């Protein structure tokens, strides 16, 4: 096991998979000569050359679709969106083409493709650079959606995503690339669709994913110390397909749930999980599921305002206290 940053873990996953399978290639803006806008692809051009690590024009619709066509004809593209904000330009190709190709061709054309990039707000980038796309992408059958929170998960899930035979949308974060953690060497895969209890607890389950996980960890330290509440942290890791069984098991143990997500909360993954829990564990719940998400406003530039509208520790603590009827 090595201590790697999140960006290194992702880079390693791509490196290993490209070494293993010559049909894997990486395309995106600045991924080659610049080593990636956020340096995730560092060293890949040197190792694999310009045939397999390709700097694209700023044409998100075009190169998302190019990836789909390459996947239809036997390659395994990794398409990097510099951020998912720009990936919205590729939604027609992702939603109308990648996700539906296998189905509408009667099973003939699978799309083994990964589309990856940072999701959600970073820091003071204002409204157009702070969009979370998990609610959109998870609504689409045919796609898989993965959102890792730690370097090890990043590596294991990205390797699995690259080997998956379906279009996988992989959601990262600029704020996480520098975070460090232990990462198993070499062949280490985490199956898609399998969540993890990141921390066992008995009073409340917090379900969370992606970079907000780290805010949850901090909030939980505070909650446990301050209020003596034992919190279980559950990270589904893959949002589509969702590991519902793991969720229901935890709910049956703690009977109280808070869902913390970075996206806006209307018709979001949080709403979905809440609906499923209420539906499947109705009699197990001691309180309705509580949710924390970004306030329903575009993300502002000003630092204090931004902090105020994003999920923050304070909001998480309050939601936990609400769900145990402490306030």
């Amino acid at each position, binding site marked *: 096991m090595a201590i790697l940053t999140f960006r290194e873990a992702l880079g390693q996953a791509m490196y290993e998979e490209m070494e293993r399978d010559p049909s894997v*290639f990486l395309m995106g803006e600045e991924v080659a000569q610049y080593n990636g806008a956020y340096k995730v692809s560092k060293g890949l051009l040197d190792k694999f050359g310009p*045939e*397999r690590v*390709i700097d*694209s*024009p700023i*044409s998100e*619709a*075009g*190169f*998302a*679709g*190019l*990836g*789909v*066509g*390459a*996947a*239809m*004809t*036997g*390659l395994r*593209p990794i398409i990097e969106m510099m951020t998912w904000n720009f990936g919205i330009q590729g939604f*027609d*190709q992702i939603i*109308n*083409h990648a996700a539906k*190709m*296998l*189905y*509408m*061709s*009667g*099973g*003939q*054309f*699978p799309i083994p493709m990964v589309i990856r990039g940072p999701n959600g707000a970073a820091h003071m980038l204002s409204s157009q650079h702070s969009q979370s796309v998990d609610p959109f992408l998870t609504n689409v*059958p*045919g796609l*898989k959606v993965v959102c890792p929170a730690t370097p090890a998960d990043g590596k294991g899930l990205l390797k699995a995503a690259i080997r998956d*035979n*379906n279009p996988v949308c992989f959601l990262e974060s600029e704020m996480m690339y520098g975070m460090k953690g232990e990462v198993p060497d070499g062949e280490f895969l985490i199956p898609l669709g399998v969540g993890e209890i990141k921390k066992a607890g008995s009073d409340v389950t917090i379900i969370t994913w992606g970079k907000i996980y780290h805010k949850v960890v901090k909030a939980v330290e505070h909650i446990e110390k301050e209020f003596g509440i034992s919190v279980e942290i559950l990270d589904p890791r893959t949002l589509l397909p969702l590991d519902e069984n793991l969720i229901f098991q935890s709910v049956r143990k703690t009977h109280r749930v808070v869902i913390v997500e970075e996206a806006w909360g209307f018709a979001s993954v949080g709403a979905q999980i809440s609906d499923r829990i209420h539906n499947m564990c109705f009699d197990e719940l001691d309180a309705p599921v509580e949710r924390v998400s970004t306030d329903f406003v575009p993300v502002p530039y000003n630092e204090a305002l931004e902090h105020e509208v994003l999920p923050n520790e304070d909001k998480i603590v309050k939601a936990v206290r609400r769900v145990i009827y402490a306030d």
Partner: protein
Amino acid sequence: MSSKVKKTVPDQAHPLVALYKEMLYYRRFEERVLVAYTNQKFSGFCHVHIGQEALCVGVQKCLRPTDYMISGYRSHTQAIAKGIPGHQVFAELFGKVTGCSRGKGGSMHMFSKEHRFLGGHGIVGGQAPLATGAAFRIKYMKEDDIVVCYMGDAAMNQGQVYEVMNMAATWDLPVLFIVENNQYGMGTDIRRTTSVDHLYKRALAFDMDHSMVDAMDVETVIQHVDKIVKKMRKDKKPYLLEAKCYRYKGHSVSDPQNYRTKEEVAEWLKKDPVLVLGEKLKAEKLATEDLLESWDDEIKTRVRADEQFADESPNPDLSEAWMHVYLD
């Protein structure tokens, strides 16, 4: 393609005869499709190629089986030309499990992995990035196939088409972009939605090779496209071909066609690629009226058999509704 040879006994092995028969087959096929649609044997959208047969027949003659092809929602005949048996296309229209997309795609979504026909797509222009991806694969694998990407004239106003023309030109990806310029996008004369008189001018934005061809004449198409394809196999560069043609029927079955005059249609009907070649066969003594009629009968029988196959095929089992969403 010489058509100069004259004989007193019609030479049924002459290449022009095969071309004629193939075009006639597509004509009769699409006519039969329209009848079936009108008789409500299937539903959804239905876009036919009547009047535009010369292009797909001509282009196909310049390709080899390993070349890829992709198109829009108007692609029954192209799918057949690329190798999908007509009865599988007909069965797809009827939503049958024997259809080339197992009844899940319908008129707009013909697919065949075996024949490298990458679909039948419903989003105008959406096939262009896919075509470019297939061409990327060709380059990646150092192969020398090419990709034919059929698009309508109105698709030339789609941003994603432009984005990938740029990529294909920048990276030397062998896509032959063919604009089937039938001069209308639904009810809109293409001259009302773009500022240029010739759609091949789009290629100028990328220094991409380009030209225009009269796509009402199959021999012209073959001569023209053959050169392009030979060149592309060597230089691997993309190419934009504007194929000028005309659709004789409405955009889809429900179209009242108020947007064009009867005179205009009549003018283009004079260039009917099937009729004109039929006349030529007779003039060059490659066929007689009787022979033409007997071929027509043969072909109609063949089309009826295609339809019969579709008729008699089973629907997909309901369980298929939940299959093919993901591949394990």
